[in-house]
């Protein structure tokens, strides 16, 4: 049984269903990646697991708890961290204030967590007094991930963390994501850069039209000729 699992998820934003009996799961310390063509429902699957859309069928479980009926805010308190694709930092607040806001629900002393984030992303420690909106795209993504880590989540969900950053920055971000996973956090992310993402993934999900098409280890999916031909450009 996986630590986080969205099982048999069926639903959409109100009109027609986007997800059809879709199952996604991830374990602690693991990186799971959702890939697929445009409009495959990758982000929708992520949002369903985070409670941002109503499921008609299926269930989401975190650890031993059924969390299907919880709001996103309640899921944050239950131990899930979410980094949206856009608007994922407070642009006018400094880096440090962004992290403080990430820890808003914590009443205890969170300075050690902030130090951990700074040691994970040293560049943020340098720029802690700078408004997040003035940072480069890659640095801003680090702020966004750092903000989500401030609640000390068990699961970190990333919606296209490398969208719009250069290839070098992308490699760097993936390295950081592996570092986060190595601290024992489960990582679930949606990625456009399928090949690079699968290369670091313990588990990969290829979605097509809201359905699970292939599910395997990242390595196996990269080696699968059909996946290569259809989704990875040969």
């Amino acid at each position, binding site marked *: 049984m996986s630590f986080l699992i969205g099982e048999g998820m069926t639903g959409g934003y109100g009109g027609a269903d986007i997800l059809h009996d879709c199952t996604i799961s991830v374990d602690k310390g693991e990186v799971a990646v959702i890939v697929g063509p445009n409009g495959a429902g990758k982000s929708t699957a992520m949002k369903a697991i985070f409670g941002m859309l109503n499921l008609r069928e299926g269930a989401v479980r975190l650890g031993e708890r059924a969390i299907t009926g919880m709001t996103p*805010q309640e899921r*944050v308190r239950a131990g899930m961290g979410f980094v949206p694709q856009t*608007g994922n930092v*407070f642009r*006018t*607040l400094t880096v440090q204030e962004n992290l403080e*806001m990430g820890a808003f629900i914590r009443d205890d002393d969170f300075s050690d967590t902030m130090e951990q984030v700074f040691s994970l992303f040293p560049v943020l420690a340098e720029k802690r007094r700078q408004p997040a909106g003035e940072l480069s795209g890659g640095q801003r993504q680090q702020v966004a991930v750092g903000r989500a880590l401030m609640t000390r989540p068990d699961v970190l969900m990333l919606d296209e963390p490398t969208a719009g950053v250069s290839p070098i920055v992308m490699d760097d971000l993936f390295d950081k994501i592996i570092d986060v996973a190595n601290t024992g956090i489960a990582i679930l992310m949606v990625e456009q850069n399928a090949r690079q993402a699968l290369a670091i993934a313990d588990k990969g999900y290829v979605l097509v039209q809201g359905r699970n098409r292939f599910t395997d280890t990242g390595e196996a999916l990269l080696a699968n000729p059909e996946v290569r031909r259809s989704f990875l450009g040969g």
Partner: protein
Amino acid sequence: MEDILNASLVLANFVIIPSLAYGAQLALGALGVTLIYAVLRFANFAHGDLMAFGTMAVILVTWFFQAQGIGLGPLPTALLALPFGIIAAVLLAMGTDRFVYRFYRKKRAAPVTFVIASVGVMFVYNALTRIFIGTSDIRFEDGERFLIRARESREWMGLAEGLALRSSQALTLVVAIIVVVALFWSLQKTRTGKAMRAYSDNEDLALLSGINPGRVVLITWVIAATLATIAGTLYGLDKSFRPFNYFMLLLPIFAAAVVGGIGQPFGAIAGGFVVAFSEVSITYAYRRVLSHILPEEWMPDGLAQLLSTDYKFAVSFIILVLVLLVRPNGIFKGRVI
């Protein structure tokens, strides 16, 4: 040398000091408007009448204190009544939010809907104030009227002109500085202030971070109503209280908020002074200043006034239009309206 001193004293008495006081009053008003805009995302047309309501409450309590013989000596009694006025205005603003704005927030109404609702609220506030205190001009300043008297300072300096500083003007500046410092400190340093800025910056991410929007909205109203009452009371002490004038103040206050960059607290303050200095310096008759520095034969026949004081609101209008045309997000890069 003496001529220039005399001319600058006249300028100080009639342009610089009044503009500073008026600018501080506008800045406090504009801060309220800009905070509401930053958090609730609409231009609150009822702000001028919220000022009037708060000031009315201050006046009523002032009268009560005066009748009881309670005073502050040289300081105006209104200062003692101010906290009561603030409480009244805060309760009114919170009640309005509960019964009007919350309904539209739940419906996720467009900003223009909020604006029109606030126009309705404006008329209700307006009527409330008129029912309680009437429409006439009320002067409620007591205590020592002047801090520096023109005649005494003239004799002391031995010049043709003296310096006059009214206590209401000095009080305005002192109170405005204290309020602004306290506001900025709490916005920058306290957890609640940071949460307000975060909510204003990115509502969705603030929700995701566990910031309670209801609390942020509530605190914003408390601050806005407090600022409105303080600004209204200082304005009333400095000039006089007349409900209609407070409604008219809405225009220079909006101009100040937009000039500075709406949603930017620092911009509201800068904007307040820009509008006040423009308004006073354009409508002031410079004849007396010129009489000290120009030779007799160069003196103009008229008052050397650029615009009659009847047109002072035109100055705010012109500033507003110019800013929206040339630099729509204001001096300090606020939001584009």
